[in-house]
Protein backbone atom coordinates (compact mmCIF):
# COMPACT_ATOMS: atom_id res chain seq x y z
CA UNK A 1 0.00 0.00 0.00
CA UNK A 2 1.08 3.55 -0.65
CA UNK A 3 2.78 5.19 2.30
CA UNK A 4 0.83 8.41 1.70
CA UNK A 5 -2.45 6.56 2.05
CA UNK A 6 -1.35 4.92 5.28
CA UNK A 7 -0.22 8.28 6.57
CA UNK A 8 -3.50 9.91 5.64
CA UNK A 9 -5.67 7.24 7.23
CA UNK A 10 -3.48 7.09 10.32
CA UNK A 11 -3.59 10.85 10.63
CA UNK A 12 -7.36 10.97 10.42
CA UNK A 13 -7.68 8.14 12.91
CA UNK A 14 -5.29 9.87 15.22
CA UNK A 15 -7.21 13.14 15.14
CA UNK A 16 -10.47 11.39 15.96
CA UNK A 17 -8.81 9.40 18.73
CA UNK A 18 -7.17 12.47 20.23
CA UNK A 19 -10.38 14.45 20.13
CA UNK A 20 -11.99 11.72 22.19
CA UNK A 21 -9.07 11.68 24.61
CA UNK A 22 -9.13 15.45 24.97
CA UNK A 23 -12.85 15.66 25.64
CA UNK A 24 -12.62 12.58 27.83
CA UNK A 25 -10.00 14.32 29.89
CA UNK A 26 -12.01 17.50 30.27
CA UNK A 27 -15.07 15.46 31.26
CA UNK A 28 -12.97 13.48 33.68
CA UNK A 29 -11.66 16.64 35.29
CA UNK A 30 -15.05 18.19 35.83
CA UNK A 31 -17.06 15.06 36.53
CA UNK A 32 -14.77 13.71 39.22
CA UNK A 33 -14.97 17.06 40.90
CA UNK A 34 -18.76 17.18 40.65
CA UNK A 35 -19.11 13.72 42.09
CA UNK A 36 -16.89 14.81 44.93
CA UNK A 37 -14.29 12.18 44.18
CA UNK A 38 -11.47 14.65 44.03
CA UNK A 39 -10.99 18.33 44.26
CA UNK A 40 -8.40 19.46 41.78
CA UNK A 41 -8.33 23.05 42.89
CA UNK A 42 -7.05 22.12 46.32
CA UNK A 43 -3.79 21.08 44.70
CA UNK A 44 -3.15 24.75 44.04
CA UNK A 45 -2.45 25.04 47.78
CA UNK A 46 0.66 22.93 47.36
CA UNK A 47 2.56 25.98 46.21
CA UNK A 48 1.15 28.30 48.85
CA UNK A 49 1.45 26.11 51.90
CA UNK A 50 4.78 24.50 51.30
CA UNK A 51 6.63 24.61 54.59
CA UNK A 52 8.34 21.43 55.57
CA UNK A 53 6.22 21.43 58.70
CA UNK A 54 2.87 22.02 57.03
CA UNK A 55 0.71 18.95 56.42
CA UNK A 56 0.71 17.60 52.87
CA UNK A 57 -2.44 18.14 50.84
CA UNK A 58 -2.52 14.41 50.23
CA UNK A 59 -0.07 12.41 52.33
CA UNK A 60 1.42 9.33 50.75
CA UNK A 61 0.23 6.88 53.40
CA UNK A 62 -3.41 7.91 53.46
CA UNK A 63 -3.74 7.64 49.74
CA UNK A 64 -5.81 4.44 49.63
CA UNK A 65 -8.36 5.78 52.06
CA UNK A 66 -8.82 9.01 50.20
CA UNK A 67 -9.15 8.11 46.58
CA UNK A 68 -11.65 5.30 47.01
Amino acid at each position, binding site marked *: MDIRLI*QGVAYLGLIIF*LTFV*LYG*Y*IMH*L*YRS*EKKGKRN*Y*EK*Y*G*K*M*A*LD*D*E*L*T*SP*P*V*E*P*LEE*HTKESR
Partner: protein
Amino acid sequence: MQNPAIEYDYTVAKWFSYLAILFGIIGMGIGVWIAFELAFPELNYVAGQYTLFSRLRPIHTNTVAFGFTLSGIFATWYYVGQRVLKVSMAESKFLMAVGKLHFWLYFIGALLAVGSLLLRYTTSKEYAQFEWPFDIVVVLIWVLWGISIFGLIGIRREKTLYISMWYYIATFLGVAMLYLFNNMEVPTYLITGMGDPFHSVSMYAGTNDAMVQWWYGHNAVAFVFTVPIIAMIYYYLPKESGQPVYSYKLSLLSFWGLMFVYLWAGGHHLIYSTVPDWMQTMGSVFSVILILPSWGSALNMLLTMKGEWGQLKENPLIKFMVLASTFYMLSTLEGPIQSIKSVNALAHFTDWIPGHVHDGTLGWVGFMIIAAIMHMAPRFYKREIYSKKLLEMQFWLQTTGIVLYFSSMWIAGITQGMMWRAVDQYGNLAYSFIDTVTVLHPYYTLRAIGGLFYFTGLFMWAYNFYKTMTASKAIEKEPQFASPMAA
Protein backbone atom coordinates in the same frame (compact mmCIF):
# COMPACT_ATOMS: atom_id res chain seq x y z
CA MET B 1 5.92 12.51 61.04
CA GLN B 2 7.51 15.94 60.93
CA ASN B 3 10.85 16.62 62.36
CA PRO B 4 11.12 20.31 63.16
CA ALA B 5 14.90 20.11 63.23
CA ILE B 6 15.03 19.53 59.49
CA GLU B 7 14.85 22.49 57.14
CA TYR B 8 14.88 22.79 53.39
CA ASP B 9 18.44 22.73 52.16
CA TYR B 10 19.14 25.44 49.61
CA THR B 11 22.85 24.81 49.07
CA VAL B 12 22.61 23.60 45.49
CA ALA B 13 19.86 26.08 44.64
CA LYS B 14 22.14 28.89 45.82
CA TRP B 15 25.06 27.66 43.76
CA PHE B 16 23.01 27.46 40.62
CA SER B 17 21.61 30.93 41.28
CA TYR B 18 25.15 32.34 41.33
CA LEU B 19 25.82 30.58 38.06
CA ALA B 20 22.65 31.96 36.50
CA ILE B 21 23.80 35.46 37.34
CA LEU B 22 27.32 34.79 36.11
CA PHE B 23 26.29 33.15 32.83
CA GLY B 24 23.58 35.75 32.33
CA ILE B 25 26.15 38.50 32.45
CA ILE B 26 28.67 36.68 30.26
CA GLY B 27 26.15 35.43 27.69
CA MET B 28 24.21 38.64 27.34
CA GLY B 29 27.39 40.69 27.47
CA ILE B 30 28.59 38.81 24.41
CA GLY B 31 25.15 39.32 22.89
CA VAL B 32 25.36 43.08 23.32
CA TRP B 33 28.87 43.04 21.93
CA ILE B 34 27.97 41.21 18.74
CA ALA B 35 24.88 43.39 18.35
CA PHE B 36 27.22 46.38 18.26
CA GLU B 37 29.46 44.53 15.82
CA LEU B 38 26.62 44.42 13.31
CA ALA B 39 26.25 48.17 13.56
CA PHE B 40 29.99 48.94 13.83
CA PRO B 41 31.99 46.18 12.13
CA GLU B 42 35.38 47.45 13.38
CA LEU B 43 34.49 45.91 16.74
CA ASN B 44 35.03 42.49 15.18
CA TYR B 45 38.78 42.84 15.44
CA VAL B 46 39.17 43.81 19.09
CA ALA B 47 40.71 40.49 20.06
CA GLY B 48 41.76 39.17 16.68
CA GLN B 49 39.86 36.16 15.41
CA TYR B 50 38.30 35.53 18.83
CA THR B 51 35.87 38.41 18.61
CA LEU B 52 34.65 37.77 15.07
CA PHE B 53 30.86 37.81 14.93
CA SER B 54 30.65 34.28 13.61
CA ARG B 55 32.83 32.96 16.42
CA LEU B 56 30.88 34.70 19.15
CA ARG B 57 27.34 34.18 18.00
CA PRO B 58 27.21 30.45 18.87
CA ILE B 59 28.87 31.26 22.18
CA HIS B 60 26.20 33.85 22.88
CA THR B 61 23.32 31.50 22.09
CA ASN B 62 24.80 28.57 23.97
CA THR B 63 25.79 30.57 27.04
CA VAL B 64 22.40 32.19 27.31
CA ALA B 65 20.33 29.09 26.56
CA PHE B 66 22.39 26.43 28.26
CA GLY B 67 24.27 28.61 30.74
CA PHE B 68 21.91 31.25 32.02
CA THR B 69 18.59 29.52 31.41
CA LEU B 70 19.60 26.03 32.47
CA SER B 71 21.26 27.39 35.62
CA GLY B 72 18.03 29.19 36.39
CA ILE B 73 16.06 26.02 35.75
CA PHE B 74 18.32 23.95 37.99
CA ALA B 75 18.36 26.62 40.72
CA THR B 76 14.59 26.74 40.82
CA TRP B 77 14.28 22.97 40.59
CA TYR B 78 16.50 22.47 43.65
CA TYR B 79 14.27 24.97 45.45
CA VAL B 80 10.76 24.26 44.17
CA GLY B 81 11.30 20.50 44.02
CA GLN B 82 11.89 20.23 47.73
CA ARG B 83 9.04 22.54 48.64
CA VAL B 84 6.21 21.10 46.61
CA LEU B 85 7.23 17.54 47.46
CA LYS B 86 7.62 18.61 51.11
CA VAL B 87 10.92 16.86 51.55
CA SER B 88 14.31 18.32 52.28
CA MET B 89 17.46 17.42 50.44
CA ALA B 90 19.12 17.27 53.85
CA GLU B 91 17.13 14.10 54.47
CA SER B 92 19.11 12.18 51.90
CA LYS B 93 22.90 12.27 51.80
CA PHE B 94 22.80 10.56 48.45
CA LEU B 95 20.61 13.17 46.77
CA MET B 96 22.69 15.92 48.30
CA ALA B 97 25.81 14.38 46.80
CA VAL B 98 24.12 13.95 43.43
CA GLY B 99 23.04 17.58 43.51
CA LYS B 100 26.53 18.82 44.24
CA LEU B 101 28.10 16.56 41.64
CA HIS B 102 25.48 17.75 39.18
CA PHE B 103 26.51 21.34 39.85
CA TRP B 104 30.25 20.82 39.52
CA LEU B 105 30.04 18.67 36.43
CA TYR B 106 27.73 21.22 34.87
CA PHE B 107 29.96 24.16 35.74
CA ILE B 108 33.17 22.57 34.51
CA GLY B 109 31.48 21.08 31.46
CA ALA B 110 30.01 24.46 30.54
CA LEU B 111 33.37 26.21 30.77
CA LEU B 112 35.12 23.55 28.67
CA ALA B 113 32.34 23.57 26.08
CA VAL B 114 32.48 27.34 25.69
CA GLY B 115 36.25 27.09 25.38
CA SER B 116 35.87 24.51 22.64
CA LEU B 117 33.60 26.83 20.66
CA LEU B 118 36.14 29.60 20.99
CA LEU B 119 38.73 27.24 19.50
CA ARG B 120 36.45 26.48 16.53
CA TYR B 121 35.24 23.05 17.60
CA THR B 122 31.68 23.09 16.37
CA THR B 123 29.28 20.80 14.55
CA SER B 124 27.51 23.89 13.13
CA LYS B 125 24.06 22.60 14.11
CA GLU B 126 22.35 25.45 15.90
CA TYR B 127 22.05 25.06 19.69
CA ALA B 128 23.78 21.69 19.28
CA GLN B 129 27.22 22.98 18.30
CA PHE B 130 29.20 21.05 20.88
CA GLU B 131 31.36 18.26 19.51
CA TRP B 132 30.82 14.71 20.64
CA PRO B 133 33.02 14.56 23.79
CA PHE B 134 31.00 17.45 25.23
CA ASP B 135 27.78 15.80 24.18
CA ILE B 136 28.74 12.91 26.40
CA VAL B 137 29.33 15.30 29.29
CA VAL B 138 25.93 16.86 28.63
CA VAL B 139 24.32 13.43 28.80
CA LEU B 140 26.02 12.72 32.13
CA ILE B 141 24.83 16.04 33.53
CA TRP B 142 21.35 15.26 32.39
CA VAL B 143 21.37 11.79 33.92
CA LEU B 144 22.45 13.30 37.24
CA TRP B 145 19.58 15.74 37.09
CA GLY B 146 17.21 12.86 36.34
CA ILE B 147 18.46 10.97 39.38
CA SER B 148 17.93 14.06 41.44
CA ILE B 149 14.36 14.56 40.17
CA PHE B 150 13.17 11.01 40.50
CA GLY B 151 15.15 10.44 43.69
CA LEU B 152 13.45 13.35 45.38
CA ILE B 153 10.09 12.18 44.10
CA GLY B 154 10.86 8.77 45.56
CA ILE B 155 11.15 10.12 49.10
CA ARG B 156 8.39 12.71 48.91
CA ARG B 157 5.69 13.30 51.53
CA GLU B 158 3.16 14.82 49.16
CA LYS B 159 1.36 12.14 47.21
CA THR B 160 0.28 14.22 44.24
CA LEU B 161 2.81 15.97 42.06
CA TYR B 162 2.19 19.70 41.82
CA ILE B 163 1.83 21.05 38.27
CA SER B 164 5.32 22.57 38.35
CA MET B 165 6.71 19.08 38.87
CA TRP B 166 4.95 17.93 35.73
CA TYR B 167 6.70 20.61 33.77
CA TYR B 168 10.11 19.84 35.27
CA ILE B 169 9.68 16.15 34.46
CA ALA B 170 8.65 17.03 30.92
CA THR B 171 11.72 19.24 30.56
CA PHE B 172 13.91 16.41 31.64
CA LEU B 173 12.37 13.91 29.24
CA GLY B 174 11.97 16.25 26.32
CA VAL B 175 15.52 17.55 26.29
CA ALA B 176 16.90 14.05 26.79
CA MET B 177 15.08 12.73 23.75
CA LEU B 178 15.78 15.69 21.51
CA TYR B 179 19.40 16.07 22.42
CA LEU B 180 20.21 12.43 21.92
CA PHE B 181 18.62 12.15 18.52
CA ASN B 182 19.92 15.41 17.13
CA ASN B 183 23.48 14.75 18.24
CA MET B 184 23.79 11.35 16.65
CA GLU B 185 27.21 11.64 15.10
CA VAL B 186 30.09 9.40 14.15
CA PRO B 187 33.48 10.38 15.59
CA THR B 188 35.80 10.14 12.60
CA TYR B 189 38.84 9.32 14.69
CA LEU B 190 37.23 6.21 16.10
CA ILE B 191 36.49 4.89 12.61
CA THR B 192 39.71 5.81 10.82
CA GLY B 193 42.27 6.34 13.57
CA MET B 194 43.46 9.61 12.08
CA GLY B 195 42.72 13.31 12.10
CA ASP B 196 41.32 15.38 14.92
CA PRO B 197 39.93 13.19 17.72
CA PHE B 198 37.20 15.73 18.46
CA HIS B 199 35.82 15.76 14.94
CA SER B 200 32.61 13.95 14.11
CA VAL B 201 30.23 13.69 11.19
CA SER B 202 26.44 13.79 11.42
CA MET B 203 24.50 10.54 11.07
CA TYR B 204 21.95 12.30 8.90
CA ALA B 205 22.58 13.99 5.58
CA GLY B 206 21.09 17.06 3.93
CA THR B 207 17.35 17.39 4.18
CA ASN B 208 17.08 14.67 6.81
CA ASP B 209 19.66 16.41 8.90
CA ALA B 210 17.67 19.63 8.54
CA MET B 211 14.46 17.91 9.63
CA VAL B 212 16.07 16.38 12.70
CA GLN B 213 17.84 19.62 13.49
CA TRP B 214 14.71 21.76 13.44
CA TRP B 215 12.64 19.17 15.18
CA TYR B 216 15.33 19.59 17.82
CA GLY B 217 15.87 23.31 17.45
CA HIS B 218 12.24 24.22 17.76
CA ASN B 219 11.63 21.90 20.66
CA ALA B 220 14.76 22.93 22.47
CA VAL B 221 12.93 26.23 22.58
CA ALA B 222 9.93 24.33 23.90
CA PHE B 223 11.72 22.38 26.57
CA VAL B 224 14.30 24.94 27.67
CA PHE B 225 12.56 28.27 27.13
CA THR B 226 8.93 27.38 27.66
CA VAL B 227 8.15 24.26 29.66
CA PRO B 228 10.51 24.81 32.63
CA ILE B 229 9.69 28.52 32.73
CA ILE B 230 6.02 27.61 33.04
CA ALA B 231 7.07 25.30 35.87
CA MET B 232 8.61 28.31 37.56
CA ILE B 233 5.73 30.69 37.11
CA TYR B 234 3.19 28.16 38.38
CA TYR B 235 5.12 28.11 41.61
CA TYR B 236 6.55 31.58 42.08
CA LEU B 237 3.60 33.68 40.99
CA PRO B 238 1.09 32.01 43.36
CA LYS B 239 3.64 31.92 46.14
CA GLU B 240 4.69 35.54 45.84
CA SER B 241 1.12 36.81 45.48
CA GLY B 242 -0.51 34.44 47.97
CA GLN B 243 -3.14 33.53 45.40
CA PRO B 244 -3.64 29.91 44.30
CA VAL B 245 -3.46 29.15 40.58
CA TYR B 246 -6.62 30.50 38.96
CA SER B 247 -7.70 27.14 37.59
CA TYR B 248 -5.72 24.06 38.42
CA LYS B 249 -7.77 22.07 35.92
CA LEU B 250 -6.85 24.47 33.14
CA SER B 251 -3.19 24.08 34.05
CA LEU B 252 -3.46 20.30 33.65
CA LEU B 253 -5.30 20.59 30.38
CA SER B 254 -2.87 23.04 28.87
CA PHE B 255 -0.01 20.85 30.01
CA TRP B 256 -1.16 17.94 27.87
CA GLY B 257 -2.08 20.28 25.06
CA LEU B 258 1.36 21.84 25.06
CA MET B 259 3.13 18.49 25.26
CA PHE B 260 1.22 17.12 22.35
CA VAL B 261 1.12 20.08 20.01
CA TYR B 262 4.57 21.60 20.49
CA LEU B 263 6.53 18.74 18.96
CA TRP B 264 4.74 18.98 15.63
CA ALA B 265 5.50 22.60 15.01
CA GLY B 266 9.22 22.23 14.19
CA GLY B 267 8.41 22.13 10.48
CA HIS B 268 7.75 25.86 10.45
CA HIS B 269 11.51 26.44 10.37
CA LEU B 270 11.64 24.69 7.02
CA ILE B 271 8.83 26.31 5.07
CA TYR B 272 9.65 26.61 1.35
CA SER B 273 12.72 24.45 1.87
CA THR B 274 13.22 21.01 0.33
CA VAL B 275 11.44 19.05 3.06
CA PRO B 276 8.16 17.43 2.00
CA ASP B 277 5.30 19.81 1.50
CA TRP B 278 2.96 18.01 3.87
CA MET B 279 5.44 18.46 6.65
CA GLN B 280 5.75 22.18 6.03
CA THR B 281 1.97 22.50 6.11
CA MET B 282 1.77 20.41 9.24
CA GLY B 283 4.37 22.61 10.94
CA SER B 284 2.42 25.68 9.93
CA VAL B 285 -0.97 24.35 11.07
CA PHE B 286 0.28 23.02 14.39
CA SER B 287 2.04 26.29 15.10
CA VAL B 288 -1.27 28.08 14.89
CA ILE B 289 -2.96 25.45 17.08
CA LEU B 290 -0.16 25.99 19.57
CA ILE B 291 -1.69 29.34 20.48
CA LEU B 292 -4.40 27.51 22.44
CA PRO B 293 -2.36 25.67 25.07
CA SER B 294 0.13 28.54 25.27
CA TRP B 295 -2.51 31.12 25.93
CA GLY B 296 -4.26 28.67 28.23
CA SER B 297 -1.21 28.73 30.48
CA ALA B 298 -0.60 32.44 30.08
CA LEU B 299 -4.18 33.45 30.87
CA ASN B 300 -4.18 31.10 33.81
CA MET B 301 -1.18 32.96 35.18
CA LEU B 302 -2.66 36.38 34.60
CA LEU B 303 -6.03 35.38 36.10
CA THR B 304 -4.21 34.11 39.16
CA MET B 305 -3.83 37.79 39.97
CA LYS B 306 -7.60 38.32 39.76
CA GLY B 307 -8.80 40.67 42.45
CA GLU B 308 -5.25 41.29 43.56
CA TRP B 309 -4.04 43.59 40.83
CA GLY B 310 -3.08 46.12 43.47
CA GLN B 311 -0.01 43.99 44.13
CA LEU B 312 1.22 44.83 40.67
CA LYS B 313 1.77 48.36 41.83
CA GLU B 314 3.43 47.50 45.09
CA ASN B 315 5.56 44.50 44.31
CA PRO B 316 8.23 44.66 41.59
CA LEU B 317 8.56 40.88 41.58
CA ILE B 318 4.88 40.60 40.61
CA LYS B 319 5.60 43.18 37.91
CA PHE B 320 8.38 41.02 36.50
CA MET B 321 6.22 37.92 36.48
CA VAL B 322 3.09 39.51 35.07
CA LEU B 323 5.09 41.15 32.30
CA ALA B 324 6.80 37.81 31.69
CA SER B 325 3.43 36.13 31.06
CA THR B 326 2.43 39.04 28.85
CA PHE B 327 5.59 38.62 26.78
CA TYR B 328 4.86 34.92 26.66
CA MET B 329 1.49 35.71 25.13
CA LEU B 330 3.09 38.12 22.70
CA SER B 331 5.70 35.71 21.44
CA THR B 332 3.33 32.74 21.28
CA LEU B 333 1.12 34.85 19.07
CA GLU B 334 3.98 36.24 17.01
CA GLY B 335 5.47 32.79 16.38
CA PRO B 336 2.33 31.33 14.80
CA ILE B 337 1.93 34.45 12.68
CA GLN B 338 5.44 33.94 11.34
CA SER B 339 4.59 30.31 10.64
CA ILE B 340 1.85 31.16 8.19
CA LYS B 341 3.34 30.35 4.82
CA SER B 342 2.92 33.74 3.17
CA VAL B 343 4.25 35.58 6.21
CA ASN B 344 7.10 33.12 6.51
CA ALA B 345 8.09 33.80 2.92
CA LEU B 346 8.74 37.37 3.96
CA ALA B 347 10.04 36.86 7.49
CA HIS B 348 12.32 33.84 7.11
CA PHE B 349 16.06 34.62 7.12
CA THR B 350 15.40 38.21 8.28
CA ASP B 351 15.99 40.02 11.57
CA TRP B 352 12.36 39.60 12.49
CA ILE B 353 13.27 36.08 13.63
CA PRO B 354 15.94 37.14 16.16
CA GLY B 355 13.47 39.84 17.18
CA HIS B 356 10.85 37.19 17.90
CA VAL B 357 13.32 35.01 19.79
CA HIS B 358 14.39 37.89 21.97
CA ASP B 359 10.97 39.11 23.04
CA GLY B 360 10.43 35.56 24.25
CA THR B 361 13.81 35.07 25.87
CA LEU B 362 14.41 38.54 27.31
CA GLY B 363 10.82 39.20 28.27
CA TRP B 364 9.58 35.80 29.29
CA VAL B 365 12.59 33.65 30.21
CA GLY B 366 14.85 36.40 31.53
CA PHE B 367 12.20 38.16 33.59
CA MET B 368 10.92 34.94 35.09
CA ILE B 369 14.39 33.79 36.14
CA ILE B 370 15.24 37.21 37.56
CA ALA B 371 12.01 37.24 39.57
CA ALA B 372 12.48 33.65 40.74
CA ILE B 373 15.99 34.25 41.98
CA MET B 374 15.02 37.47 43.75
CA HIS B 375 12.10 35.64 45.34
CA MET B 376 14.48 32.98 46.62
CA ALA B 377 17.14 35.41 47.87
CA PRO B 378 15.35 36.40 51.12
CA ARG B 379 14.65 32.72 51.79
CA PHE B 380 18.24 31.73 51.10
CA TYR B 381 19.77 34.25 53.45
CA LYS B 382 16.93 35.12 55.84
CA ARG B 383 17.34 38.74 54.89
CA GLU B 384 15.18 41.35 53.20
CA ILE B 385 15.71 42.12 49.54
CA TYR B 386 18.24 44.92 49.65
CA SER B 387 16.47 47.51 47.55
CA LYS B 388 12.97 47.65 46.16
CA LYS B 389 13.79 50.88 44.35
CA LEU B 390 16.68 49.29 42.50
CA LEU B 391 14.45 46.40 41.50
CA GLU B 392 11.88 48.85 40.16
CA MET B 393 14.51 50.72 38.21
CA GLN B 394 15.83 47.48 36.81
CA PHE B 395 12.33 46.52 35.73
CA TRP B 396 11.70 49.71 33.82
CA LEU B 397 15.16 49.86 32.27
CA GLN B 398 14.97 46.29 31.05
CA THR B 399 11.42 46.66 29.79
CA THR B 400 12.50 49.68 27.75
CA GLY B 401 15.42 47.61 26.47
CA ILE B 402 13.15 44.81 25.28
CA VAL B 403 10.76 47.21 23.58
CA LEU B 404 13.65 48.89 21.75
CA TYR B 405 14.96 45.47 20.79
CA PHE B 406 11.89 43.94 19.27
CA SER B 407 10.47 47.07 17.69
CA SER B 408 13.73 47.78 15.87
CA MET B 409 13.99 44.17 14.75
CA TRP B 410 10.42 44.13 13.49
CA ILE B 411 11.12 47.14 11.32
CA ALA B 412 14.51 45.79 10.24
CA GLY B 413 13.13 42.36 9.37
CA ILE B 414 10.18 43.59 7.38
CA THR B 415 12.29 46.21 5.59
CA GLN B 416 14.84 43.59 4.67
CA GLY B 417 12.20 41.09 3.52
CA MET B 418 10.44 43.69 1.39
CA MET B 419 13.66 44.93 -0.18
CA TRP B 420 14.79 41.42 -1.09
CA ARG B 421 11.66 40.93 -3.14
CA ALA B 422 11.15 44.47 -4.45
CA VAL B 423 11.21 44.83 -8.24
CA ASP B 424 11.30 47.82 -10.52
CA GLN B 425 8.78 48.55 -13.28
CA TYR B 426 10.43 46.03 -15.61
CA GLY B 427 10.33 43.22 -13.06
CA ASN B 428 14.03 43.32 -12.25
CA LEU B 429 15.21 43.18 -8.66
CA ALA B 430 15.28 46.71 -7.34
CA TYR B 431 18.06 46.35 -4.78
CA SER B 432 21.40 44.60 -4.63
CA PHE B 433 22.00 42.62 -1.48
CA ILE B 434 24.33 45.18 0.05
CA ASP B 435 21.58 47.84 -0.17
CA THR B 436 19.50 45.68 2.14
CA VAL B 437 22.38 45.51 4.62
CA THR B 438 23.41 49.15 4.81
CA VAL B 439 19.80 50.25 5.26
CA LEU B 440 19.67 48.33 8.54
CA HIS B 441 22.40 50.32 10.28
CA PRO B 442 20.08 52.52 12.41
CA TYR B 443 18.00 49.52 13.49
CA TYR B 444 21.07 47.51 14.39
CA THR B 445 22.28 50.43 16.48
CA LEU B 446 18.92 50.78 18.23
CA ARG B 447 18.79 47.06 18.91
CA ALA B 448 22.26 47.12 20.42
CA ILE B 449 21.26 50.01 22.67
CA GLY B 450 18.16 48.11 23.75
CA GLY B 451 20.35 45.16 24.57
CA LEU B 452 22.70 47.41 26.49
CA PHE B 453 19.76 48.59 28.64
CA TYR B 454 18.84 45.02 29.45
CA PHE B 455 22.47 44.16 30.16
CA THR B 456 22.82 47.13 32.53
CA GLY B 457 19.75 45.81 34.34
CA LEU B 458 21.58 42.56 34.94
CA PHE B 459 24.25 44.36 36.92
CA MET B 460 21.58 46.02 39.03
CA TRP B 461 20.16 42.56 39.64
CA ALA B 462 23.53 41.10 40.56
CA TYR B 463 24.28 44.01 42.89
CA ASN B 464 20.89 43.75 44.54
CA PHE B 465 21.34 40.03 45.00
CA TYR B 466 24.83 40.46 46.42
CA LYS B 467 23.71 43.13 48.84
CA THR B 468 20.75 41.00 49.91
CA MET B 469 23.17 38.22 50.64
CA THR B 470 25.63 40.29 52.63
CA ALA B 471 24.28 43.57 53.93
CA SER B 472 20.51 43.54 54.11
CA LYS B 473 18.40 43.58 57.26
CA ALA B 474 17.91 40.12 58.74
CA ILE B 475 14.41 38.68 59.06
CA GLU B 476 13.30 36.30 61.78
CA LYS B 477 11.61 33.63 59.75
CA GLU B 478 10.99 32.72 56.16
CA PRO B 479 8.30 34.96 54.70
CA GLN B 480 5.19 33.07 53.64
CA PHE B 481 4.13 35.07 50.60
CA ALA B 482 5.38 38.44 49.37
CA SER B 483 9.15 38.82 49.66
CA PRO B 484 10.06 41.52 52.15
CA MET B 485 12.11 44.36 50.70
CA ALA B 486 13.70 47.49 51.97
CA ALA B 487 12.70 50.63 50.18
